[in-house]
Protein backbone atom coordinates (compact mmCIF):
# COMPACT_ATOMS: atom_id res chain seq x y z
CA UNK A 1 0.00 0.00 0.00
CA UNK A 2 2.92 2.34 0.80
CA UNK A 3 4.36 1.55 -2.62
CA UNK A 4 1.05 2.46 -4.23
CA UNK A 5 1.00 5.84 -2.47
CA UNK A 6 4.70 6.46 -3.15
CA UNK A 7 4.36 5.75 -6.90
CA UNK A 8 1.17 7.83 -7.09
CA UNK A 9 2.83 10.73 -5.26
CA UNK A 10 5.97 10.48 -7.42
CA UNK A 11 3.97 10.56 -10.67
CA UNK A 12 1.77 13.44 -9.56
CA UNK A 13 4.75 15.42 -8.27
CA UNK A 14 6.68 14.86 -11.52
CA UNK A 15 3.61 15.95 -13.45
CA UNK A 16 3.13 19.01 -11.25
CA UNK A 17 6.75 20.08 -11.82
CA UNK A 18 6.57 20.21 -15.61
CA UNK A 19 2.86 19.68 -16.38
CA UNK A 20 3.73 18.67 -19.96
CA UNK A 21 1.55 15.56 -20.00
CA UNK A 22 -1.52 17.37 -18.68
CA UNK A 23 -1.08 20.29 -21.07
CA UNK A 24 -0.50 17.99 -24.04
CA UNK A 25 -3.58 15.89 -23.17
CA UNK A 26 -5.72 19.02 -22.64
CA UNK A 27 -4.70 20.66 -25.91
CA UNK A 28 -5.10 17.38 -27.77
CA UNK A 29 -8.61 16.81 -26.35
CA UNK A 30 -9.55 20.38 -27.30
CA UNK A 31 -8.23 19.87 -30.82
CA UNK A 32 -10.17 16.63 -31.16
CA UNK A 33 -13.36 18.43 -30.06
CA UNK A 34 -12.73 21.18 -32.64
CA UNK A 35 -11.95 18.69 -35.41
CA UNK A 36 -15.04 16.63 -34.54
CA UNK A 37 -17.20 19.77 -34.48
CA UNK A 38 -16.32 20.51 -38.10
CA UNK A 39 -16.33 16.83 -39.12
CA UNK A 40 -19.72 16.09 -37.54
CA UNK A 41 -21.73 18.89 -39.20
CA UNK A 42 -23.52 20.06 -36.03
CA UNK A 43 -27.22 20.58 -36.20
CA UNK A 44 -27.86 17.36 -38.09
CA UNK A 45 -28.54 14.96 -35.24
CA UNK A 46 -25.58 16.36 -33.30
CA UNK A 47 -27.24 15.58 -29.96
CA UNK A 48 -27.38 11.89 -30.79
CA UNK A 49 -23.75 11.86 -31.89
CA UNK A 50 -22.39 14.05 -29.09
CA UNK A 51 -21.75 11.27 -26.49
CA UNK A 52 -19.83 9.19 -29.02
CA UNK A 53 -17.74 12.13 -30.16
CA UNK A 54 -17.01 13.14 -26.57
CA UNK A 55 -15.72 9.66 -25.77
CA UNK A 56 -13.61 9.65 -28.93
CA UNK A 57 -11.89 12.77 -27.55
CA UNK A 58 -11.42 11.06 -24.15
CA UNK A 59 -9.98 7.88 -25.65
CA UNK A 60 -7.51 9.74 -27.88
CA UNK A 61 -6.41 12.02 -25.03
CA UNK A 62 -5.96 9.02 -22.73
CA UNK A 63 -3.80 7.19 -25.31
CA UNK A 64 -1.60 10.30 -25.54
CA UNK A 65 -1.28 10.53 -21.75
CA UNK A 66 -0.69 6.82 -21.23
CA UNK A 67 2.05 6.83 -23.84
CA UNK A 68 3.89 9.40 -21.72
CA UNK A 69 3.24 7.57 -18.44
CA UNK A 70 6.22 5.27 -18.89
CA UNK A 71 8.33 7.33 -21.30
CA UNK A 72 9.90 9.23 -18.39
CA UNK A 73 10.70 5.99 -16.59
CA UNK A 74 13.01 4.95 -19.44
CA UNK A 75 15.43 7.79 -18.69
CA UNK A 76 18.31 6.78 -16.44
CA UNK A 77 16.87 3.25 -16.19
CA UNK A 78 14.22 4.48 -13.75
CA UNK A 79 11.97 1.61 -14.82
CA UNK A 80 14.55 -0.87 -13.52
CA UNK A 81 14.56 1.06 -10.24
CA UNK A 82 10.80 0.69 -10.04
CA UNK A 83 11.06 -3.02 -10.80
CA UNK A 84 13.61 -3.43 -8.00
CA UNK A 85 11.23 -1.96 -5.40
CA UNK A 86 10.79 -4.57 -2.65
CA UNK A 87 7.05 -4.87 -3.06
CA UNK A 88 4.39 -6.59 -5.10
CA UNK A 89 4.54 -5.01 -8.55
CA UNK A 90 0.76 -4.95 -8.63
CA UNK A 91 0.92 -1.98 -6.24
CA UNK A 92 3.32 -0.20 -8.59
CA UNK A 93 0.78 -0.77 -11.35
CA UNK A 94 -2.01 0.64 -9.18
CA UNK A 95 0.07 3.74 -8.35
CA UNK A 96 0.85 4.42 -12.02
CA UNK A 97 -2.76 3.72 -13.08
CA UNK A 98 -4.16 5.98 -10.34
CA UNK A 99 -1.90 8.86 -11.42
CA UNK A 100 -2.99 8.46 -15.07
CA UNK A 101 -6.61 8.20 -13.92
CA UNK A 102 -6.44 11.46 -11.96
CA UNK A 103 -4.91 13.30 -14.93
CA UNK A 104 -7.53 11.87 -17.28
CA UNK A 105 -10.35 12.90 -14.92
CA UNK A 106 -9.09 16.50 -15.00
CA UNK A 107 -8.97 16.39 -18.82
CA UNK A 108 -12.43 14.83 -18.93
CA UNK A 109 -13.91 17.67 -16.86
CA UNK A 110 -12.30 20.33 -19.06
CA UNK A 111 -13.19 18.61 -22.33
CA UNK A 112 -16.79 18.07 -21.18
CA UNK A 113 -17.16 21.80 -20.50
CA UNK A 114 -15.78 22.71 -23.93
CA UNK A 115 -17.89 20.01 -25.55
CA UNK A 116 -21.07 21.27 -23.87
CA UNK A 117 -20.42 24.74 -25.32
CA UNK A 118 -19.35 23.56 -28.78
CA UNK A 119 -22.15 21.06 -29.30
CA UNK A 120 -24.78 22.86 -27.24
CA UNK A 121 -25.51 19.86 -25.01
CA UNK A 122 -26.58 20.21 -21.37
CA UNK A 123 -23.99 18.31 -19.32
CA UNK A 124 -24.18 20.60 -16.23
CA UNK A 125 -27.65 19.42 -15.03
CA UNK A 126 -26.41 15.80 -15.03
CA UNK A 127 -22.90 16.59 -13.80
CA UNK A 128 -22.86 14.07 -10.92
CA UNK A 129 -24.11 10.97 -12.72
CA UNK A 130 -21.97 11.99 -15.71
CA UNK A 131 -18.94 12.18 -13.39
CA UNK A 132 -19.67 8.60 -12.30
CA UNK A 133 -19.84 7.40 -15.91
CA UNK A 134 -16.68 9.34 -16.81
CA UNK A 135 -14.90 7.81 -13.80
CA UNK A 136 -15.92 4.25 -14.70
CA UNK A 137 -14.91 4.76 -18.34
CA UNK A 138 -11.60 6.36 -17.36
CA UNK A 139 -10.89 3.51 -14.94
CA UNK A 140 -11.31 0.99 -17.75
CA UNK A 141 -9.06 3.04 -20.04
CA UNK A 142 -6.33 3.57 -17.45
CA UNK A 143 -6.25 0.01 -16.06
CA UNK A 144 -5.27 -2.00 -19.15
CA UNK A 145 -3.95 1.24 -20.65
CA UNK A 146 -1.25 1.39 -17.97
CA UNK A 147 -0.42 -2.29 -18.46
CA UNK A 148 -0.12 -1.89 -22.24
CA UNK A 149 1.79 1.39 -21.90
CA UNK A 150 4.42 -0.48 -19.86
CA UNK A 151 4.62 -3.00 -22.73
CA UNK A 152 4.48 -0.50 -25.61
CA UNK A 153 7.19 1.74 -24.18
CA UNK A 154 9.71 -1.08 -24.59
CA UNK A 155 8.82 -1.92 -28.20
CA UNK A 156 10.45 -0.43 -31.28
CA UNK A 157 7.30 1.47 -32.39
CA UNK A 158 6.20 2.63 -28.97
CA UNK A 159 3.93 5.53 -30.07
CA UNK A 160 2.07 3.32 -32.55
CA UNK A 161 1.98 0.18 -30.44
CA UNK A 162 -0.14 1.48 -27.56
CA UNK A 163 -3.25 2.39 -29.60
CA UNK A 164 -2.89 -0.85 -31.57
CA UNK A 165 -2.85 -2.86 -28.36
CA UNK A 166 -5.40 -0.83 -26.45
CA UNK A 167 -8.18 0.14 -28.86
CA UNK A 168 -9.39 -3.36 -29.86
CA UNK A 169 -9.92 -4.12 -26.16
CA UNK A 170 -11.70 -0.87 -25.41
CA UNK A 171 -15.03 -1.61 -27.11
CA UNK A 172 -16.85 -2.66 -23.89
CA UNK A 173 -15.64 0.50 -22.13
CA UNK A 174 -16.50 2.82 -25.02
CA UNK A 175 -19.89 1.20 -25.65
CA UNK A 176 -20.90 1.24 -21.99
CA UNK A 177 -19.75 4.82 -21.48
CA UNK A 178 -21.40 6.14 -24.65
CA UNK A 179 -24.68 4.39 -23.86
CA UNK A 180 -24.74 5.75 -20.32
CA UNK A 181 -23.74 9.28 -21.42
CA UNK A 182 -26.38 9.20 -24.14
CA UNK A 183 -29.10 8.27 -21.64
CA UNK A 184 -28.00 11.08 -19.31
CA UNK A 185 -28.06 13.69 -22.07
CA UNK A 186 -31.56 12.54 -23.01
CA UNK A 187 -32.50 13.16 -19.34
CA UNK A 188 -33.16 9.48 -18.75
CA UNK A 189 -32.12 7.48 -15.68
CA UNK A 190 -28.68 5.86 -15.67
CA UNK A 191 -29.04 2.65 -17.71
CA UNK A 192 -28.14 -0.24 -15.39
CA UNK A 193 -26.98 -2.65 -18.16
CA UNK A 194 -24.40 -0.10 -19.35
CA UNK A 195 -23.20 0.64 -15.80
CA UNK A 196 -23.02 -3.08 -15.05
CA UNK A 197 -20.97 -3.59 -18.22
CA UNK A 198 -18.58 -0.84 -17.13
CA UNK A 199 -18.28 -2.26 -13.61
CA UNK A 200 -17.61 -5.81 -14.83
CA UNK A 201 -15.15 -4.61 -17.49
CA UNK A 202 -13.28 -2.41 -14.99
CA UNK A 203 -13.09 -5.30 -12.51
CA UNK A 204 -11.79 -7.75 -15.15
CA UNK A 205 -9.26 -5.25 -16.51
CA UNK A 206 -8.03 -4.29 -13.04
CA UNK A 207 -7.58 -7.90 -11.94
CA UNK A 208 -5.84 -8.95 -15.20
CA UNK A 209 -3.58 -5.89 -15.12
CA UNK A 210 -2.76 -6.19 -11.39
CA UNK A 211 -1.69 -9.82 -11.81
CA UNK A 212 0.03 -9.41 -15.21
CA UNK A 213 2.08 -6.34 -14.31
CA UNK A 214 4.43 -8.64 -12.42
CA UNK A 215 5.46 -10.23 -15.72
CA UNK A 216 5.60 -7.00 -17.73
CA UNK A 217 8.13 -5.38 -15.37
CA UNK A 218 10.13 -8.57 -15.00
CA UNK A 219 13.33 -7.50 -16.85
Amino acid at each position, binding site marked *: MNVFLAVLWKDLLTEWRDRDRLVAMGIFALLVVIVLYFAAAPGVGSEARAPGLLWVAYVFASVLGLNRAFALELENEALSGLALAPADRGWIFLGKAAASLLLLLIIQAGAAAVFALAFDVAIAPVALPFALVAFLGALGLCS*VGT*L*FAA*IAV*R*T*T*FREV*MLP*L*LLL*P*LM*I*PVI*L*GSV*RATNALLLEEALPW*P*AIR*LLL*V*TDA*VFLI*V*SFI*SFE*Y*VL*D*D
Partner: protein
Amino acid sequence: MPPSSPDRVIPTLHRASTVALGVCAIIYGILVVNAPLDSEQGVIQKILYIHVPCAMAAYLGFLLTAIGGGLYLWKRDERFDRFAASAAEVGVFFCALVLVTGPIWGRGTWGTWWSWDLRLTVTLLLFLVYLSYLLLRSFTEGTERTARFAAVYGIAGLAVIPLNYFAIDLAGGRSIHPQNLEGGSLGVGMVMPFAMGAVTAIVAFSHLLLGRIDIARLRAQLAEREAEREMRGGDGSPWDI
Protein backbone atom coordinates in the same frame (compact mmCIF):
# COMPACT_ATOMS: atom_id res chain seq x y z
CA MET B 1 24.09 -35.31 -32.06
CA PRO B 2 20.83 -37.33 -32.40
CA PRO B 3 17.66 -35.18 -32.25
CA SER B 4 15.89 -35.15 -28.91
CA SER B 5 12.48 -36.77 -28.51
CA PRO B 6 10.29 -33.62 -29.04
CA ASP B 7 12.37 -32.85 -32.14
CA ARG B 8 11.21 -36.12 -33.66
CA VAL B 9 7.64 -36.10 -32.34
CA ILE B 10 6.46 -32.84 -33.94
CA PRO B 11 7.64 -33.61 -37.52
CA THR B 12 6.16 -37.12 -37.22
CA LEU B 13 2.84 -35.75 -36.02
CA HIS B 14 2.94 -33.17 -38.79
CA ARG B 15 3.40 -35.85 -41.43
CA ALA B 16 0.59 -37.92 -39.89
CA SER B 17 -1.70 -34.87 -39.91
CA THR B 18 -1.02 -34.41 -43.65
CA VAL B 19 -2.45 -37.86 -44.32
CA ALA B 20 -5.39 -37.25 -41.96
CA LEU B 21 -6.12 -33.92 -43.63
CA GLY B 22 -6.09 -35.50 -47.08
CA VAL B 23 -8.57 -38.21 -46.02
CA CYS B 24 -10.83 -35.71 -44.21
CA ALA B 25 -10.78 -33.28 -47.12
CA ILE B 26 -11.90 -35.96 -49.60
CA ILE B 27 -14.78 -37.15 -47.38
CA TYR B 28 -15.74 -33.54 -46.60
CA GLY B 29 -15.73 -32.58 -50.29
CA ILE B 30 -17.98 -35.50 -51.23
CA LEU B 31 -20.40 -34.74 -48.38
CA VAL B 32 -20.61 -31.02 -49.23
CA VAL B 33 -21.17 -31.64 -52.94
CA ASN B 34 -23.96 -34.13 -52.15
CA ALA B 35 -25.54 -32.06 -49.37
CA PRO B 36 -29.10 -30.90 -50.15
CA LEU B 37 -29.64 -27.34 -51.34
CA ASP B 38 -31.28 -24.98 -48.87
CA SER B 39 -34.84 -24.19 -50.01
CA GLU B 40 -34.49 -20.45 -49.29
CA GLN B 41 -30.81 -19.61 -49.75
CA GLY B 42 -29.88 -22.02 -52.53
CA VAL B 43 -26.28 -22.96 -53.22
CA ILE B 44 -24.78 -20.02 -51.28
CA GLN B 45 -25.90 -21.71 -48.06
CA LYS B 46 -23.12 -24.28 -48.62
CA ILE B 47 -20.64 -21.65 -47.50
CA LEU B 48 -21.89 -22.56 -44.01
CA TYR B 49 -19.77 -25.71 -44.25
CA ILE B 50 -16.63 -23.57 -44.56
CA HIS B 51 -17.55 -20.47 -42.58
CA VAL B 52 -18.60 -21.98 -39.25
CA PRO B 53 -15.83 -24.65 -39.04
CA CYS B 54 -13.26 -21.92 -39.77
CA ALA B 55 -14.75 -19.83 -36.94
CA MET B 56 -14.38 -22.82 -34.60
CA ALA B 57 -10.72 -23.23 -35.63
CA ALA B 58 -10.09 -19.48 -35.17
CA TYR B 59 -11.52 -19.44 -31.64
CA LEU B 60 -9.57 -22.61 -30.83
CA GLY B 61 -6.41 -20.83 -32.01
CA PHE B 62 -6.99 -17.85 -29.76
CA LEU B 63 -7.85 -20.08 -26.80
CA LEU B 64 -4.61 -22.04 -27.32
CA THR B 65 -2.67 -18.77 -27.62
CA ALA B 66 -3.84 -17.72 -24.17
CA ILE B 67 -3.22 -21.20 -22.71
CA GLY B 68 0.28 -21.31 -24.25
CA GLY B 69 0.98 -17.80 -22.92
CA GLY B 70 -0.24 -18.72 -19.44
CA LEU B 71 1.89 -21.87 -19.42
CA TYR B 72 4.91 -19.86 -20.57
CA LEU B 73 4.49 -17.35 -17.74
CA TRP B 74 4.20 -20.24 -15.30
CA LYS B 75 6.99 -22.54 -16.55
CA ARG B 76 9.16 -20.09 -18.53
CA ASP B 77 9.67 -22.75 -21.16
CA GLU B 78 10.22 -21.34 -24.67
CA ARG B 79 8.32 -24.23 -26.22
CA PHE B 80 5.06 -22.89 -24.75
CA ASP B 81 5.78 -19.49 -26.29
CA ARG B 82 6.41 -21.05 -29.68
CA PHE B 83 3.14 -22.96 -29.29
CA ALA B 84 1.25 -19.74 -28.40
CA ALA B 85 2.75 -17.75 -31.28
CA SER B 86 2.01 -20.57 -33.75
CA ALA B 87 -1.59 -20.91 -32.50
CA ALA B 88 -2.08 -17.15 -32.91
CA GLU B 89 -0.80 -17.17 -36.49
CA VAL B 90 -2.94 -20.13 -37.49
CA GLY B 91 -5.91 -18.59 -35.62
CA VAL B 92 -5.49 -15.33 -37.53
CA PHE B 93 -5.43 -17.29 -40.81
CA PHE B 94 -8.73 -19.05 -39.99
CA CYS B 95 -10.22 -15.81 -38.67
CA ALA B 96 -9.36 -14.14 -41.99
CA LEU B 97 -11.19 -16.98 -43.79
CA VAL B 98 -14.23 -16.37 -41.54
CA LEU B 99 -14.15 -12.66 -42.34
CA VAL B 100 -13.91 -13.37 -46.08
CA THR B 101 -16.55 -16.10 -46.28
CA GLY B 102 -18.97 -14.27 -43.94
CA PRO B 103 -19.53 -11.23 -46.16
CA ILE B 104 -19.86 -13.44 -49.27
CA TRP B 105 -22.60 -15.40 -47.51
CA GLY B 106 -24.09 -12.17 -46.14
CA ARG B 107 -24.25 -10.59 -49.59
CA GLY B 108 -26.05 -13.63 -50.95
CA THR B 109 -28.59 -13.97 -48.14
CA TRP B 110 -28.92 -10.58 -46.39
CA GLY B 111 -28.16 -8.46 -49.45
CA THR B 112 -25.29 -6.68 -47.71
CA TRP B 113 -21.57 -7.34 -47.49
CA TRP B 114 -21.27 -6.23 -43.88
CA SER B 115 -23.49 -5.77 -40.85
CA TRP B 116 -22.53 -4.73 -37.33
CA ASP B 117 -23.99 -7.96 -36.10
CA LEU B 118 -22.97 -9.40 -32.73
CA ARG B 119 -20.85 -12.33 -33.86
CA LEU B 120 -19.42 -10.56 -36.91
CA THR B 121 -18.24 -7.65 -34.80
CA VAL B 122 -16.78 -9.80 -32.03
CA THR B 123 -14.92 -11.86 -34.64
CA LEU B 124 -13.57 -8.70 -36.31
CA LEU B 125 -12.41 -7.36 -32.95
CA LEU B 126 -10.78 -10.67 -32.14
CA PHE B 127 -9.03 -10.60 -35.51
CA LEU B 128 -7.68 -7.12 -34.70
CA VAL B 129 -6.59 -8.19 -31.19
CA TYR B 130 -4.55 -11.07 -32.56
CA LEU B 131 -3.14 -9.03 -35.44
CA SER B 132 -1.94 -6.61 -32.74
CA TYR B 133 -0.57 -9.65 -30.85
CA LEU B 134 1.51 -10.61 -33.89
CA LEU B 135 2.63 -7.00 -34.41
CA LEU B 136 3.65 -6.83 -30.75
CA ARG B 137 5.79 -9.91 -31.24
CA SER B 138 7.55 -8.44 -34.26
CA PHE B 139 8.09 -5.01 -32.64
CA THR B 140 9.59 -6.37 -29.40
CA GLU B 141 13.27 -7.17 -29.17
CA GLY B 142 14.59 -10.15 -27.19
CA THR B 143 13.05 -13.61 -27.21
CA GLU B 144 12.27 -13.72 -23.52
CA ARG B 145 10.73 -10.23 -23.38
CA THR B 146 8.69 -10.88 -26.54
CA ALA B 147 7.35 -14.08 -25.01
CA ARG B 148 6.36 -12.35 -21.75
CA PHE B 149 4.68 -9.36 -23.40
CA ALA B 150 2.86 -11.54 -25.91
CA ALA B 151 1.66 -13.93 -23.20
CA VAL B 152 0.18 -11.05 -21.18
CA TYR B 153 -1.54 -9.58 -24.25
CA GLY B 154 -2.83 -12.97 -25.40
CA ILE B 155 -4.44 -13.59 -22.01
CA ALA B 156 -5.96 -10.07 -21.90
CA GLY B 157 -7.26 -10.59 -25.44
CA LEU B 158 -9.06 -13.77 -24.45
CA ALA B 159 -10.51 -12.18 -21.30
CA VAL B 160 -12.19 -9.49 -23.37
CA ILE B 161 -14.17 -11.91 -25.62
CA PRO B 162 -17.14 -12.40 -23.23
CA LEU B 163 -17.11 -8.68 -22.45
CA ASN B 164 -17.32 -7.89 -26.16
CA TYR B 165 -20.30 -10.22 -26.56
CA PHE B 166 -22.04 -8.52 -23.67
CA ALA B 167 -21.17 -5.04 -24.97
CA ILE B 168 -22.31 -5.56 -28.53
CA ASP B 169 -25.46 -7.32 -27.37
CA LEU B 170 -26.16 -4.19 -25.30
CA ALA B 171 -25.76 -2.08 -28.44
CA GLY B 172 -28.45 -4.15 -30.16
CA GLY B 173 -26.03 -6.05 -32.37
CA ARG B 174 -27.86 -9.38 -32.18
CA SER B 175 -29.90 -8.85 -35.31
CA ILE B 176 -29.47 -10.71 -38.54
CA HIS B 177 -26.96 -13.53 -38.02
CA PRO B 178 -28.56 -16.90 -38.77
CA GLN B 179 -30.28 -18.20 -35.68
CA ASN B 180 -30.79 -21.78 -36.86
CA LEU B 181 -27.40 -22.91 -35.56
CA GLU B 182 -28.22 -21.61 -32.11
CA GLY B 183 -31.26 -23.87 -32.06
CA GLY B 184 -29.29 -26.79 -33.46
CA SER B 185 -31.85 -27.20 -36.22
CA LEU B 186 -29.84 -27.88 -39.35
CA GLY B 187 -31.91 -29.25 -42.20
CA VAL B 188 -32.09 -32.93 -43.10
CA GLY B 189 -28.82 -34.08 -44.66
CA MET B 190 -26.90 -31.02 -43.52
CA VAL B 191 -25.65 -32.35 -40.20
CA MET B 192 -23.05 -34.75 -41.62
CA PRO B 193 -21.29 -32.30 -43.98
CA PHE B 194 -21.37 -29.69 -41.21
CA ALA B 195 -19.86 -32.11 -38.66
CA MET B 196 -17.28 -33.29 -41.20
CA GLY B 197 -16.46 -29.63 -41.91
CA ALA B 198 -15.79 -29.10 -38.22
CA VAL B 199 -13.56 -32.21 -38.06
CA THR B 200 -11.69 -31.17 -41.24
CA ALA B 201 -11.17 -27.63 -39.91
CA ILE B 202 -9.74 -28.97 -36.65
CA VAL B 203 -7.46 -31.39 -38.52
CA ALA B 204 -6.36 -28.57 -40.87
CA PHE B 205 -5.77 -26.37 -37.84
CA SER B 206 -3.65 -29.08 -36.19
CA HIS B 207 -1.72 -29.66 -39.41
CA LEU B 208 -0.85 -25.97 -39.81
CA LEU B 209 -0.15 -25.58 -36.08
CA LEU B 210 2.27 -28.52 -36.03
CA GLY B 211 4.00 -27.24 -39.16
CA ARG B 212 4.32 -23.76 -37.67
CA ILE B 213 5.62 -25.09 -34.36
CA ASP B 214 8.22 -27.12 -36.24
CA ILE B 215 9.35 -24.04 -38.18
CA ALA B 216 9.58 -22.06 -34.91
CA ARG B 217 11.60 -24.87 -33.34
CA LEU B 218 14.02 -24.94 -36.29
CA ARG B 219 14.36 -21.15 -36.19
CA ALA B 220 15.16 -21.29 -32.47
CA GLN B 221 17.76 -24.00 -33.12
CA LEU B 222 19.30 -21.93 -35.91
CA ALA B 223 19.47 -18.84 -33.70
CA GLU B 224 21.08 -20.94 -30.96
CA ARG B 225 23.72 -22.33 -33.33
CA GLU B 226 24.45 -18.89 -34.75
CA ALA B 227 24.95 -17.57 -31.23
CA GLU B 228 27.30 -20.50 -30.48
CA ARG B 229 29.24 -19.84 -33.69
CA GLU B 230 29.63 -16.17 -32.82
CA MET B 231 30.93 -17.14 -29.39
CA ARG B 232 33.47 -19.44 -31.03
CA GLY B 233 34.48 -16.57 -33.32
CA GLY B 234 33.33 -18.03 -36.65
CA ASP B 235 33.96 -16.09 -39.87
CA GLY B 236 30.25 -15.75 -40.60
CA SER B 237 30.12 -18.38 -43.34
CA PRO B 238 27.02 -20.59 -43.24
CA TRP B 239 29.30 -23.69 -43.22
CA ASP B 240 30.29 -22.85 -39.67
CA ILE B 241 26.85 -23.80 -38.40
